[in-house]
């Protein structure tokens, strides 16, 4: 296990300049599944600075969403959490009651499926103004006025009419824009976006993404952006963390991630993406299947069984996160593989 403070220092060289807004250090989560405690996150450490967008990329079950849920204290009951989550210097795991509600007003979350995350029998207006009225003591007419303004910001012009509508009267893309507007209404400082465009049509995806990214920059919000799309993360995030089997395996400036990865898994992810300039006769997949965190071996690198570069050293110990060329990598052979991993072939 790596020393949290050391990792934070490793990861952000010269970080003294701006103190991190969110600091997750050595976060491990065990969930009780069918009576057995199973790890879903193992030693996750990452920081988000004010105004910074950090991507969190990984396959299904790699722990991306669990990380976000742990940060927003939404883990299922019985979850055993170790490690620390600090937001603006405050220990998030110790918050209760009103303190937790205030924290949640500062950390907004946007979910993958907007339809499941709205009460189907309540109007959009109720949903958007509830937190404002209940927690920030905003009057009802003022809350509605702010909601209409914010709807205009996300490109919904007839906001006053929309507030009286129910979720089923809107398309998925529009509802997701409403969710974004609702999340921004409480003036949060950090946005947790859990695959906000995955459930949408491709054409709507780009639109919603543009709105989200634009408003984030306008309001100077920090964002933890969860996606399985490496290119999307690269396009909108300053840095990207790659997760595999409940661990972070690499954190690197997004611009470098695709073409100059530090970890064989990132390289394999980049290579698995089909090249749109050529006709692929056979898509390049990573051999084997993704491991869940609880299946990951404790005595070897979790990616070793699927890694083309694995050697004996990979199978004898779990590698620690180590700093390399401005990023962080959890690979025993990262240094010797420098330059060999390359980007996506043909890309």
């Amino acid at each position, binding site marked *: 296990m790596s020393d949290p403070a050391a990792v934070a220092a490793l990861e952000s060289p010269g970080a003294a300049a701006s103190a991190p807004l969110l600091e997750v250090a050595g976060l491990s989560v065990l969930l009780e599944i069918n009576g057995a405690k199973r790890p879903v996150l193992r030693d996750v450490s990452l920081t988000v600075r004010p105004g910074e967008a950090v991507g969190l990329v990984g396959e299904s079950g790699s722990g991306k969403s669990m990380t976000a849920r742990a940060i*927003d204290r*939404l883990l299922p*009951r019985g979850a055993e959490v170790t490690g620390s989550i600090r937001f603006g210097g405050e220990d998030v795991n110790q918050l209760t009651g009103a303190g937790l*509600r*205030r924290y*949640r*007003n500062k*950390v*907004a*979350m946007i*979910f993958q*499926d907007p339809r*499941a*995350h*709205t*009460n*189907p*029998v*309540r109007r959009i207006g*109720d949903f958007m103004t*509830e*937190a404002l009225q*209940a*927690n920030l003591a905003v009057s009802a007419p003022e809350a509605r006025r702010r909601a209409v303004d914010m709807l205009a910001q996300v490109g919904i012009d007839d906001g006053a009419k929309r507030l009286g509508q129910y979720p089923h009267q809107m398309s998925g893309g529009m509802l997701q824009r409403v*969710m974004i507007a*609702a*999340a921004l209404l*409480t003036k949060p400082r950090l946005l*947790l976006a859990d695959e906000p465009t995955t459930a949408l049509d491709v054409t709507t995806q780009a639109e919603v993404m543009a709105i989200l990214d634009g408003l984030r920059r306008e309001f100077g919000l920090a964002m933890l952006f969860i996606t399985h799309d490496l290119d999307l993360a690269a396009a909108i995030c300053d840095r990207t963390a790659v997760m595999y089997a409940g661990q972070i395996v690499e954190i690197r400036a997004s611009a470098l991630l695709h073409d100059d990865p530090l970890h064989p898994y990132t390289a394999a992810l980049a290579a698995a993406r089909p090249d749109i300039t050529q006709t692929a006769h056979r898509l390049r997949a990573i051999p084997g299947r993704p491991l869940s965190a609880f299946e990951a071996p404790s005595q070897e690198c979790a990616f070793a069984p699927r890694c083309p570069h694995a050697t004996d050293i990979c199978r004898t110990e779990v590698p620690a996160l180590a700093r390399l060329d401005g990023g962080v990598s959890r690979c025993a052979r990262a240094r010797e593989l420098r330059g060999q991993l390359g980007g996506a072939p043909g890309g």
Partner: protein
Amino acid sequence: MSTGIPTAIEAPRFRALTSVRATGIVGIASAIILAAATFTAIFGPLLAPYDPELPNLSLAWIGPAGGHLLGFDVQGRDVLSRLLAGAQTSMLGPLVVVIVSIVTGSLLAVVAAWRRGAADAAISSGLDILFAFPGILLAVLATAVFGAGLPAAAIALSLAYMPYVARVLRGAAYRERSQPYVAALEVQGASATSICLRHLIPNMLPLIVAQATILFGYAMVDLAAISFLGLGVQPPRPDWGVMISENQTGIVQGYPLPALSAGVCIVAVVIAVNVLGERLFEQAEAGRR
């Protein structure tokens, strides 16, 4: 060219038609019976043609005769007047029982589902203990504490029914609590009280209403039984349960009308309420799909 738009507009009208058809004669009759019973409960004492509490022993056990449609009871009082006046306590008692047990039961269910863990365990085992006491036994206890009368009987039955309500609604509350929209409200910073009162309970309302109608029937029969035992409404106050109790000897003596007419009223209202409750529940389930 029947596209999605026209069918979407026609859909609600179609639904309304089928629901009326499904309700049918039985449903409409039930609604009429319930409406009549409610009307009588409110205006019964004004409608009663004779004084329901004035005995005239020389008229005891006389059958229907001029102006007295249902004849006279054991003490020579007009049966129809007693039926009309008795509707008040017979309908009000179950209503109180239903309201008290539904309100307390839903609150306990929601608290258990929200807090889970120790709070849920405490509430659930508390309910299990209450389950062990039959309603009638609780009624005897309540009579000992509060004295015989409708309030004691209503308190006892409310306490006896509350665990059933809480048990059923706890499951529903658990289901609702695990809906993703609840997590979305939580991260918005909504308080537990506001989520429970403004979202969980309203979304459980169809089930709550269905439970209430079923309980109303049970409560009516049980309260009549308690009055029959002499622990509920006290004679000479008119009440359907009391009427059966007072006139039970008539059944063997060949004058069944006074006791039976009260029994028929109870049975009719109970069936009507149950039919309507079932219809409501079916519609709620259909709406859920």
